[in-house]
C-alpha cells in the first residue's frame, strides 16, 4: 500500500497530512478526537537532517496537552551511512528522536508505529522500535542487515546463511522473523479497514514493554524475558 492509500483507509473522516521530502507530518480526525501523524517514507535513509525534523515534530506534540495518539508511518532504509552524518554525531540525533517518542508516550500520547515497507538497523531502532506499540502491514520487510552483508561480516557463504535462516528466526531479515522475536506486536490485515484495526490497538491499554514476553511465547527469543527478570529480581533481593 502507498502512504496515501494507508491514510485514506485509516482516516475516512479526513486528514491534513502533507509530505515534506520523504517525511510526513499532519493530523487526522479519528473517532471523537484526533491522531497525530509523522512518517519516514520512500525507503529513504534517515540521517541527521531527517531525524532532527522528526524529533521537532514529536516534541511539539509531546508538549501539547491533547493526549492524542501519535501514528508513525515507517518505510525507510537504514540510517544514512555517510562521513558527514557520523562527523556531526548521528548517534545523538537518532537517540534524541527515540527519546522524544518515549517522552511523548510518558506524557500520555500513545505511540503507534506502523511499518508498511522497509526499515533497518539504527533507523528502525530510532523510529518504529521506539514506539510503544509496533504493528506492520503484510509485505513489510524489516532487517538489521541484509544477508549478503551478513555473509561478508560472518565470513559464511550466503547459501549456508540461507539454510540456517530456515531453521531459526533469530538473525535473518524479514517480517515473520521480527514478529517471532517479539519486535512486532501484530500484523494487520490489509484487506479490511485499517481504521478498525487502529481502534482495536487504541482500545487495548498498554502494559509495559512486553516484547521479550512475546518473543518467548512465539519461540523466537527464548531467553530474554527470563534473564531480564532474573537480573531484576537479584538486584532487588
Amino acid at each position, binding site marked *: 500500500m502507498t502512504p496515501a492509500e494507508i491514510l485514506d483507509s485509516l482516516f475516512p473522516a479526513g486528514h491534513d497530512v502533507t509530505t515534506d521530502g520523504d517525511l510526513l507530518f499532519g493530523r487526522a480526525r479519528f473517532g471523537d478526537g484526533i491522531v497525530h501523524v509523522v512518517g519516514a517514507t520512500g525507503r529513504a535513509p534517515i540521517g541527521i537532517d531527517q531525524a532532527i525534523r522528526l524529533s521537532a515534530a514529536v516534541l511539539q506534540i509531546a508538549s501539547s496537552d491533547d493526549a492524542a495518539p501519535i501514528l508513525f508511518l515507517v518505510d525507510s532504509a537504514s540510517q544514512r551511512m555517510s562521513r558527514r552524518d557520523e562527523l556531526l554525531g548521528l548517534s545523538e540525533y537518532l537517540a534524541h528522536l527515540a527519546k522524544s517518542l*518515549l517522552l511523548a508516550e510518558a*506524557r500520555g500520547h500513545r505511540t503507534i508505529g506502523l511499518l508498511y515497507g522497509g526499515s533497518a538497523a539504527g533507523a528502525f531502532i530510532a523510529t518504529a*522500535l521506539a514506539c510503544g506499540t509496533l504493528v506492520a502491514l503484510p509485505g513489510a520487510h524489516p532487517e*538489521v542487515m541484509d544477508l549478503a552483508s551478513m555473509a561478508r561480516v560472518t565470513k559464511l557463504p550466503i547459501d549456508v546463511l540461507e539454510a540456517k535462516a530456515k531453521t531459526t528466526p533469530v538473525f535473518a531479515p524479514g517480517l515473520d522473523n521480527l514478529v517471532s522475536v517479539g519486535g512486532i506486536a501484530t500484523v494487520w490485515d490489509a484487506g479490511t479497514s485499517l481504521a478498525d484495526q487502529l481502534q482495536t490497538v487504541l482500545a487495548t491499554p498498554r502494559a509495559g*514493554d512486553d516484547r521479550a514476553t512475546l518473543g518467548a511465547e512465539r519461540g523466537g527469543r527464548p531467553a530474554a524475558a527470563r534473564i531480564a527478570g532474573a*537480573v531484576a529480581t537479584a*538486584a532487588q533481593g
Partner: protein
Amino acid sequence: MSNIRQSWYEAGARERIAALVDPRSFAEFVGPECRETSPHLGIFNLPAQFDDGIVVGSGSINGTPVLVAAQEGRFMGGAFGEVHGAKLTGLLRAAKALGRDVVIAFDTGGVRLQEANAGEIAIAEIMRAIVEARLDGVRVVGLIGGRAGCYGGGGLIAGCCSTLIVSEQGRISVTGPEVIETNKGVEEFDSRDRALVWRTMGGKHRTLIGGADVFVDDDAAAFRAAATAALARPAKFDAATLAAEQARLERRIARFGDMSDATDIWHALGINDPKAIPDMPADAFATLAAQYRESADDAR
C-alpha cells in the same frame, strides 16, 4: 588500590568494574556460575561464554550504592545478543524500581549479527528502560574508552545516557568505518585511514562538539573520578531537557553542517591550531576543550 596507572583501554570488563567500585563492594547478578550462554551462537559453530560478554551487578562508588554493567569487548566485539542485552535491560528495570543510579562501561560494535533480530530488539528495550528510569530521576552514566568503541546500537544507547565520559580511544558512531566504506565506497570513508577514524569518531571530537560531557585520560582512576563527579550532578530528564537537546542539535547542523572534516569544525570553534589536537596530551586537551567546546549543558 595500587598507584600503578591502569589503562582502561587494555582492561577487561571485570577489571574495569574492579577499578570502578569500592573494594569488595561488587556483587554480580546472573554471573558465569549460572552458565547463561547464548542459545544461538551454536548455530554458527561459535564458542559461547558463560557471561555472554557482559558483567552486571551492584556495588558502591565512594560509598554511593550503584548498579553497574561492563561489556567485554574481547568476546564477539562486545556485541549485543539476546542474553547480553537482557542482562542490561533487567539491571535498568531494577534501577527504576530501586531509584538507584547506573554506570555502564560500553565496549561494543553494536548488534551481534549472528542473533541480529534479538540484539536489535534488545537495544530498543534497553533504550526504553533507560528513559523510563531517567524519568524517575535515575542517573545513567556511560563510560566509553574500550577497544571496540561504542558503535551501532551501542551509540544510540549511549545517546540516552545522562552523562558520557570518554577517553581519546572512546569512539562513538552509528555506522562503523568499514561498513561505510563497504556500502558507499572508499571515497566516502577510507577505513584504513586511522587518523580520519579518530578525528571523526574519537573522544576528542565528541567532546568538542558536545557529544560527550567529560574527557579523561586512558586511566581507570580517571574514569572512576569522573563517574563519581557525574553521580553527584543533578538528575534531570523532562520535556525541557529534550527541548534543550533539540536546540543544541539544530544549532550544531546550522553551525557545522557544511563542514567536511573535523579540523574545520575545531577551527570554527575558535581553536587556532586544530591539527595539533590529535597529538595533544589529555590534560592539555581537556583545558583547551573547556574553553572552546560546545557544551551539552545537561541537554541530553
